[in-house]
């Protein structure tokens, strides 16, 4: 296999991986920090994509402003959902099951709301100005928007790591994950913290949606397709571990990229195979969440 193809393929895998990670980052945050299994995370990704579409295609805002607003919007929806519904089931017996049930209901509701507002036609966004072209090194051909996404992924992983480990709010949030009551005694408003964390998580999901919109189809049901893959990534990396999620995503992305290149017939099996194999040998994920949980 010639070198330039190797690079191209690796980077295409990286693009996929990064988008996967950007969706998964919110999931892993709410998993590891909020101890919440948010099955509806994909729906927030979709909501973000639609907000992006609304802002850019209908209201003709600048893409970058739209990106931020879409994230905020999804975050607000998330906080609303958390404080209206999820909050009521914390601490129940079998909370896990209730989380699945409740967030599953969220998927159903959000799907129909999106349909009511934007209809069922496919939408899409043009790439932002200055990123519609490509960069070429010799015969390596790299779309600049893909490179941009990869860069954003790195920024997100570093930033969130820094916030969670180096700042007080981050530490509090992580403490809340270990023991909600304990943090309560520290005089921290736990319900508020949970709502905020949920908001940030869903905002990340929404931003990922808006960021992916120029490359994908904005359509009802778009959330369902991403949720399982990002779950895989979150589990691979060890729940609540940003670096883990990032590397997990890269693992899945690259394995998939080269599976496509060399065994295309079976490529679609690989992401699950990777998960199964990793979990058999390292049941708690590549990076056990403990490091993150420790305050």
């Amino acid at each position, binding site marked *: 296999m010639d070198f330039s193809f190797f690079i191209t393929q690796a980077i295409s895998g990286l693009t996929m991986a990064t988008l996967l990670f950007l969706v998964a980052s919110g999931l892993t945050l709410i998993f590891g920090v909020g101890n919440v299994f948010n099955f509806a995370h994909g729906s927030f990704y979709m909501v973000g994509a639609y907000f992006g579409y609304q802002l850019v295609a209908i209201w003709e805002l600048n893409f970058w402003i739209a990106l931020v607003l879409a994230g905020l919007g999804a975050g607000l929806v998330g906080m609303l959902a958390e404080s209206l*519904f999820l909050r*009521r089931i914390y601490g129940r017996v*079998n909370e896990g*099951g*209730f989380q699945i049930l409740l967030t599953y*209901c969220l998927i*159903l509701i959000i799907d129909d709301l999106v349909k009511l507002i934007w209809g069922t036609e496919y939408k899409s966004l043009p790439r932002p100005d200055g990123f519609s072209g490509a960069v070429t090194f010799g015969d390596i051909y790299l779309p600049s928007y893909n490179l941009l996404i990869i860069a954003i992924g790195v920024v997100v992983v570093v930033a969130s790591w820094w916030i969670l480990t180096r700042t007080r709010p981050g530490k509090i949030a992580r403490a809340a994950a270990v023991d909600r009551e304990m943090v309560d005694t520290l005089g921290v408003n736990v319900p508020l913290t949970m709502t905020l964390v949920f908001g940030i998580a869903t905002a990340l999901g929404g931003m990922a949606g808006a960021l992916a919109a120029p490359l994908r189809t904005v359509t009802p049901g778009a959330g369902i397709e991403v949720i399982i893959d990002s779950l895989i990534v979150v*589990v691979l990396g060890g729940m609540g571990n940003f670096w883990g999620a990032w590397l997990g995503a890269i693992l899945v992305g690259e394995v998939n990229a080269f599976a496509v290149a060399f065994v295309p017939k079976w490529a679609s099996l690989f992401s699950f195979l990777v998960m199964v194999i990793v*979990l058999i040998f390292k049941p708690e994920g590549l990076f056990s969440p403990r490091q993150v949980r420790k305050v």
Partner: protein
Amino acid sequence: MTMKPGPKFSAAVLWTLMIMGFALVPVLMSSSYQLNLASHVLVWGLFAVAFNMLWGVTGMLSFGQALYYGLGAYFVGLMVEYLGSAWYLPAIGIGMLAVAATSFLLGLLVIRVGGVYFTMLTLAFGQLAWQITFKWYDFTGGDDGIQGITAPGFLQNPIAYYYFLLVLVMLSMWILKRMAYSPFGLMLRCVRQNPERVRFLGRRVRRNQLRVYIVSSLFAGLAGSLMAGIDNSIHTDMFFWTTSGEVILMSVLGGLNQFFGPFVGAIAMIIIEDIVGAWTEYWSLIIGSLIMGMVILFPKGLVGELYHLKLRMMQPKAGRSE
């Protein structure tokens, strides 16, 4: 949450009522569609109750029981497809053997981890099985599924099949109920509540978890193989995570801590899905809000709430907080 069987009399009444209720459907029904609906209720009910042995009783939240449901169905489907409908009944048995073997082997892998990791690992295996069935087009028919699965002889008559189904489901439920209230069942509940203590009683936690995993999967498989004969067609959906999700929803909806909770949950789910689906294209909004409301209002599930309501009415003192 207790699982004490009632006095013999009441239990007997319960069973007769339930069996009669279902047995009368073919007599009272105004159309074979209601028969179809009742059949779906029975199959999903069995699936959900079996699943709850795993979750509600032993505390192992599997997100991959669809694997065994689908396995049961596809054994029947494929054997009838390739070997003829004479193989329908043998296929059910062989399918269950296969399920037992698979659940034993996978069980050894998945029970090593607890909590959400167990959930995720089961999900991963379930999805893998789905992906394989989906891809192996030449053998499984992939996304087209398998059609024309007819039971042999008199079972081709839908009513005959319905009673066949009813007998098997009630029999299985009876077996599961005996288990739930036997020492084995007690041990399983103890495993959920305090595994450390169980170890210190000189009992093996993992071993018990493996046993119940196999039992639950076995009946999930049976449910699947019975489903194949109802619509005469099966589909890869049966392996998909949404199927595993469905039984989780049913269990929570009906109540995890009552043996019959999941069964009632299944009834509720199917009825709601059907009525709302027939009534509006915005079913997903309606159903979503409906269930959301139930979950928030009835934390103990439909049956659980009824039980506690009754308790409070009987002896006001007994109102416990949970």
